[in-house]
C-alpha cells in the first residue's frame, strides 16, 4: 500500500482529475450543442489512469496516446483553452483546428499526440524511444493505448522490436473493459492483459486504474526500471469508461448495473475521500477545487468561442515543409 505524496502534490492530482472531468463534461455539452463536430471520445472514469501516469513522467519524458486524449494534453500542461479551441475547430486550437478531438498534440510539452488509428501510435512511440536511445538522452516514452488495440498487428511487432532493441518505452494498456462495443472476453483470447507482452519479451505489471496513487506508483516504478534496465515494460491499468465509446453510442452492449457498480469506484470522489481521511484536504478546499475546475473550463469555453475559425486561404498550410524543393502547394 503506497503512501500519499506531499499534501500539495496530492491536492494537485485531485484538482487535475477534477479539471479533466469537468472539461469532458462540458465538451460533451458543447458537442450536443454542435459547437464540436466529428467523433468525441471522453475519458470520464479514466482520469486516474491519465493523471497518475502523467505525474509519474518527468518533464523530458514523452507521452503518446490515442483519440481519447483531451485529458492527456491537459495533464501534460496544455492549457484547456487550447484544447477546447481545437475541439471548436478554431485557429487557437493546439493543432490550429486541423486535428480536432482525435488528433491533439503539444510538441513543446512533449505530448506527442493523439492518434486515431487504433494501434497506430505504438510504432511511433517506439520510434521516439529510438531517438532518445540513439541521442543518448535518458528520456522515457510512455505509450498508452486501449485493450482493443492490443489485438492490432502493431502491438506484437512493436513490443518485439522494442524488447529486441531495448528501447526506453513503457507501454500502457488502458484496459477499460471494452473495445467500442466489444467486451474484453469477446476480443482478446488472453484477458490478463499484463501478460500479453510476455511472449514478446516484454514483462508486465498491473495497476488499479481507478486509483491515482496506485497508478502513479506502478507507472513510476515502470518508468524507473525502464530508464535503468533499458528494457521496455507493459503496464495494464484496469479501469472503466463511464460514458459511451463516443457521443454516438447507445451502450446496448453493457448493463446499467455494471456501469453503476464501476461508478461506485469513481476515482475522483474516491481520492478526495482518501485525502480527507488522511487529513490533507478539508471540505472547503474540496469545494474550491471543484469550483476552480468549473471556472477554468468556463474560461476555456469562452476562449474557444472567441477564437476565430481558420481563414480559407490557410487550407494548404502545413501540408509540406516548404523549401527549395517544394515551393508552395504541389501542382494542381
Amino acid at each position: 500500500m503506497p503512501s500519499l505524496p506531499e499534501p500539495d502534490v496530492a491536492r494537485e492530482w485531485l484538482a487535475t482529475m477534477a479539471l479533466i472531468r469537468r472539461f469532458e463534461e462540458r465538451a460533451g455539452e458543447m458537442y450536443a450543442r454542435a459547437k464540436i463536430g466529428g467523433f468525441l471520445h471522453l475519458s470520464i472514469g479514466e482520469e486516474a489512469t491519465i493523471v497518475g501516469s502523467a505525474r509519474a513522467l518527468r518533464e523530458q519524458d514523452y507521452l503518446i496516446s490515442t483519440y481519447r486524449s483531451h485529458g492527456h494534453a491537459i495533464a501534460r500542461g496544455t492549457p484547456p483553452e487550447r484544447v477546447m479551441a481545437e475541439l471548436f475547430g478554431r485557429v487557437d486550437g493546439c493543432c490550429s483546428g486541423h486535428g480536432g478531438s482525435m488528433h491533439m498534440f503539444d510538441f513543446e510539452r512533449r505530448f506527442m499526440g493523439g492518434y486515431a488509428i487504433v494501434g497506430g501510435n505504438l510504432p511511433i512511440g517506439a520510434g521516439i524511444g529510438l531517438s532518445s536511445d540513439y541521442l543518448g538522452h535518458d528520456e522515457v516514452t510512455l505509450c498508452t493505448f486501449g485493450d482493443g488495440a492490443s489485438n492490432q498487428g502493431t502491438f506484437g511487432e512493436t513490443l518485439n522490436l522494442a524488447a529486441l532493441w531495448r528501447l526506453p518505452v513503457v507501454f500502457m494498456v488502458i484496459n477499460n473493459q471494452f473495445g467500442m462495443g466489444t467486451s474484453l472476453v469477446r476480443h482478446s483470447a488472453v484477458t490478463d492483459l499484463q501478460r500479453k507482452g510476455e511472449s514478446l519479451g516484454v514483462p508486465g505489471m498491473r495497476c488499479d486504474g481507478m486509483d491515482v496513487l496506485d497508478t502513479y506508483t506502478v507507472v513510476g516504478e515502470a518508468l524507473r526500471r525502464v530508464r535503468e534496465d533499458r528494457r521496455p515494460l507493459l503496464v495494464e491499468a484496469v479501469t472503466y469508461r463511464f460514458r459511451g465509446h463516443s457521443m454516438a453510442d447507445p451502450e446496448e452492449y453493457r448493463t446499467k448495473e455494471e456501469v453503476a457498480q464501476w461508478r461506485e469506484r469513481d476515482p475522483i470522489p474516491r481520492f478526495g475521500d482518501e485525502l480527507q481521511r488522511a487529513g490533507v484536504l478539508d471540505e472547503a478546499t474540496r469545494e474550491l477545487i471543484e469550483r476552480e475546475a468549473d471556472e477554468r473550463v468556463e474560461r476555456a469555453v469562452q476562449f474557444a468561442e472567441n477564437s476565430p475559425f481558420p481563414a480559407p486561404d490557410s487550407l494548404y498550410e502545413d501540408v509540406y515543409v516548404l523549401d527549395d524543393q517544394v515551393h508552395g502547394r504541389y501542382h494542381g
Partner: protein
Amino acid sequence: MTELRYREALNAALHEELQRDERVVLLGEDIGVFGGAFKVTEGLLEQFGERRVRDTPISENTIVGIGVGAAMTGLRPVVELMTINFSLLAFDQIVNHAAHIRYMFGGQVSVPLVIRMPQGAGHQLGPTHSHCLEAMFLHVPGLLVAVPATPADAKGLLKAAIRDDNPVIFIEHESLYGVRGEVPDGEDALVHFGRARICREGSDVTIVGVSRMAHTAERAAATLADEHAVQAEVIDPRTLRPLDLDTILASVRKTNRCVIVEEGWPHGGVGANLAALIAEHAFDDLDAPVARVSGADVPMPYSKPLEDIAYPHEPQIVRAALSVVGAAAEGTP
C-alpha cells in the same frame, strides 16, 4: 418499390442474401452486438446468430485475410471494415492476396469475397478519418469496385457483389446512410456491375459524379438548367471496375464536353483516369478539355469551414461546367 434509407437498403441486401445462401457469413468489428458503427448490420446478429454474424477483434489485415481463406474454401464472406481509412492496414491482403490469388494459382480457385466500407468527408472526422480511396482500388486488376450512390444501387449492387465470384471492394459513403430513395422489391432485383446510371439527361455538357458526388452533380445540374439555361447530362458510373465507359462516351459524343466530379484527391484520382480514357476514345468529339472537380490536395482538415472547402460542392461544379461550355464558344474551330 419501397422507400428505404441507404442504410436500410444495405441491411435488406445483407438480410436477403444471408437468408438465401447459407454460405454467406458476415465478419467485422462491432457489426454484431453493437449493430455496426453506422448501424448497417443492425438486427442481423439477433436474426442469424453468432455463427453467421461475427464480431472480430481490431485486426483489419487479418480480418480480410480470414475472409480470403474462407472464400477460397466454400464460404461467401462479407467483411465490413468500419471505415475505408482502416483498409490501409489491409492493403496487403486485398492486393497481394484477394486480388491476385486466382491468377497466381492458375485459376484453380476463386475468391468470392466482399469488402464493405464507407468513405468520405463531411462529418469533421479530420485527417486519417475522411479518406476517399476509390482511385487506389480501381488501380488493381483482380478486384471489382462498386461506389453506390442511391439506396436502390446500394441494395442491388451489394446483392450482385455477394453473388459474384470475384473479390469486390464495395465502397459506401458515410454521408449517404440516411438518404432515402425508392428501392425495387424482389429478392432477385440485382444491379449489375459495369452499367452506369444516367441520373439526368442533357445535351450541353456531361457531368460524371462518383459516389456521393453523383448527388452533388445532380443538384449542380438543376442550378445550371434553372439559372444558366445549360442542360447537363449527369452520369453515375456506379462501378469503377468494370467501368461502363461506353455510356459515358456516348454522352460525351452528344455533349462534346465533360466534367468529372470526385471527392478524393486530384492527383492520380478517378477523374484523371476517366479524363484520360475519354480523351483517348473521343478526342475529336471534345470541344474543351475534360474538366475535373475533386477534393483538395490536402489531408482532410477537422475545422468545419476548412473541411467545407476541401471537397466539392455545387458552385465548383457549376463553375467547371460553365467554363467548359464557355470554352466551347471560343473553343476549337
